């Protein structure tokens, strides 16, 4: 069972740590993932889970809500790569996204970045698809407010 757990973990750990980092910041992302995996393993094997990927996404989201969100903002640095928005705007957008409540950030990450449908995101977040759509709406409203204010 342990070998199978290791295979599952190694398959998923990359995207899981990126998701965790998106929610709590790159410094704390690995810690959060480690805490989640350790907690799961005290109860069951990863190989016992019907859908380890969705289960762990949900667990990370829940754990992130218990995390110190305030560290995140300082750890984000500006990206120099080409982007859809000007660099100054990207800084603003970064700050705005990292200031979103964790659940809203989860919804935007899963839908806009990973390409999940709201139904799939809802499964990963343990809520209803309508709630995901609502989180997206709130996140967009907040982002628009911030970008408007910065201009």
């Amino acid at each position, binding site marked *: 069972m342990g070998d199978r757990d290791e295979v599952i973990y190694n398959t998923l750990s990359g995207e899981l740590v990126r998701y965790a980092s998106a929610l709590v910041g790159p410094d704390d992302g*690995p810690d959060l993932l480690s805490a989640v995996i350790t907690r799961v393993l005290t109860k069951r094997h990863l190989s016992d889970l019907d859908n380890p990927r969705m289960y762990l996404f949900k667990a990370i989201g829940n754990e992130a809500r218990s995390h110190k969100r305030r560290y995140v903002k300082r750890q984000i640095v500006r990206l120099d790569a080409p982007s859809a928005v000007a660099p100054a705007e990207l800084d603003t957008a970064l700050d705005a996204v990292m200031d979103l409540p964790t659940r809203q950030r989860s919804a935007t990450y899963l839908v806009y970045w990973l390409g999940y449908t709201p139904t799939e995101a809802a499964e990963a977040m343990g809520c209803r698809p309508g709630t995901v759509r609502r989180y997206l709406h709130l996140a967009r409203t907040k982002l*628009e407010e911030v970008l408007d204010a910065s201009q």
Partner: protein
Amino acid sequence: MPLSDDQFRDIFRDVFEHIDTEAPDAPEWSAITKPVTTRPAGWRGPAIALAAGAAVLIIVGVTAISSPWFRAETPPAASEAEGVIVSVTLADDIDAGQLERVIEALTTDPRVLDWRYVDKTEAYEEALLQWAGSEGTIRLLRENPSLLPATLRLLTANQTDAKAIQVLALEMFPPPTFGIMGFATARGTLTSVDLPISISGLHTYINEDNGFEIAYPVDWYQADEILAPALTSPPQKIEEVFSVGTYPLRPGAARCPNIPENALLDLGPEDVLLSIVLGGGSGDAPWPNAFGPDSFLPTDVPIDAQTCIDQPDLDARSGSFNLDGRDVQVFVAFGKFATPEKRMQTWQILDSFAWTETSTTTTTVPPASCPVTIPPQPGFAPPDGYPSTPVSGVWYGTEGLWTTIETEGISRPRKTVLWSVNFLGGREEGQPEVDVTWTRIDIPGEPTSNGGYATNAYTDEEGWFMIAGLDPNEPGCWQVTASYKGATLTYIYLAPGDASTTTTTLQTAADPLFGVEVPWVLLFDDGLEGILAIDPNERIGSRSVIDGQRPGDQPYRLQLANGYLVIGWGTVYANNVATRDSVPLGDATIFVPASDPTRVWLIDYPGGAILAGTPQVWQVSVSTGAQLSEPVAMDVDGFPSIGTPGGLAVETEAGIVLWDASIGETVDVLGTDIGFVSDVSRGINPRLAWCEAACNVLHITTIETGQDLTVTSPTGEPFDARSARFSNDQRFLAATTGNDVIVVDLESESPYTAFTIGDSTTPVSLGWAPFGPDLFASTNSFQQSAMEVAWHNALSRDTAIVALPFGGAVSFVVVDANEASGFLKREPNKPEACPPRPISDSPPEICGFVGW
């Protein structure tokens, strides 16, 4: 210029691409799975994390115990890295709706980085940990477990933000009028933001069969079957009655059936298991005032538990105690790393154990009309190879066919089990051909039968036997006739109703109307322009005209919201129950209740009639009349029935549409057929009661998660559409099936038939008291001269039904008697002297009557 959907998507993608680039590598598997000698990475001990906030609260609480206010503490200068906690101390009487408003208002402020709700129970537990070394403080806390207030802890980045949040809270909820008592601040961090499932954080389990109750944290797991197989019912008179753990409990045992072997095998290093057994012990030790490790003797270590599961370092205790003359055995097991708070919770669970009042006094005597079968003594003696006495009751019958019956002829529904010397066993007869019929002999009716279907079973104690179906789940006097291979068995038993008292009487004028004092007044809509107020304790009734009410067929004629009666159509009014001052809420076709109890939705159709066009909808405050949201078009083809968080539940031909007003869109649909909405529960995690089509099933759906509880009526009849009502504490739901009133205990998720009121021609309205388990029902007496009113306590299940000489009552609400004096006037009139219409409405007058 507004951004398009694609532009939003691109911006979010840019942001997350950048974050992904920044993300470090995941930890190696070997680093995660190495033996854990310390807490996992990221773990923060609650005692450390909460120390600062808890310490301030305790100091304040202890020194100002008699004060309704708590002093604001000035925190030490906070560094940027530490943040500041504002502990908003909440009044003891804050209700769920108020708490929800406070949380919503304060936690959405951008200056609040994180937040956490700490109820009184958790505050108490924190304090026990924090002050574990102070004997005097611990004693004070144990003697006053409700001493510490519930708090809402808000984490801000710095002290300036902390002060700003205090000012914000004071402006929005000036104490002490809205539940907030004051503030304390401290340096520190919060480690958890999870909302509790319920405000109290505790679930109370009531075991009616054994007459006890016990409370445990809602995130623990209660076993739904016996864990230790050897602990059985009589004749040993030992019964495992309650088991709970911090993990899912697996019943059964392979080696040691007298202990919860499988559950112990699953016990993790941080887990706790607690099990309670009644009877069988010596019961020498008195039940402790407060449980703790010292409550057990050193010799109370259950050696067999350690040896059976091969865990020599298992921290387990088993003790036998005497509580009010009854033996109670307690078994506890702690994982090696069980935290102090889990251990503390374990002792508190035991401290909450109590016998219920009805545990030993309930007796039922069969009426003369039910000639129950009393078995002869000695009873039937089976031939060799069968046990001389059954596990329960006594043997009754002949060698050809026998069963067990209770010595007093009274039996709750159970499996019909039969033995016969001609039944050779399950291998030879998997489905024995045994016929059973049940016939009610106290009322006429068709018998029911098992249809010839039966199965087999085997136990070591009782050998092979047949199971021929279940007794009907209906109280009454039942005759059972069974036949098998030429042998026939007949007996009569009484299936008692629920342990309740139902009284139908017109009491004398000196008594409280329902035989007991109830602190409520019922306000009936008279279908025209007035209110009929009834004080059941004082037997005062009054009729009065109320601003804004007029005849109409609006869906809600009378709605209680935050101490206001909301009424009317065309122009909607809110009337203060206590002062009777009224305020117009706005011009709209109709109103419907909102999820927030301080608001209502106004629904205005362009055609001026319900369903005439696409309505504009907006929310208003019932206390000020202020418009709280901009009118938006609700473009859903259906009827907006009731408010949900952020929107409306709309009845359509194809399900219940959940419509979100902030985005103007349908966010979900419940069901697929024509839908009917009954009610929405207020408070945290609101639930919607609804049904569809014939309403054979009542759905109770948690709006946020979609978790659905379905209920069928014990009467087998369909529910009346839109009849269900949540109690204000959200513990119960009541609904009607014709004239039967069904109550669902939402904790145990079990429905029962509470009472029957009126006849089949009279609609029944339901209403719950502002808090607690008091349910009222009344028959519609519009254009009639009398009505029936019922009171039912959903905890004790006592019921009283009275006939009242009042006509013109349609629906009603229940209000606090202390707040309803404005509607009551003691006058020596007769009810018929105060018909609804002749009352002057300028100014509104009251016509009262007493002594009916």
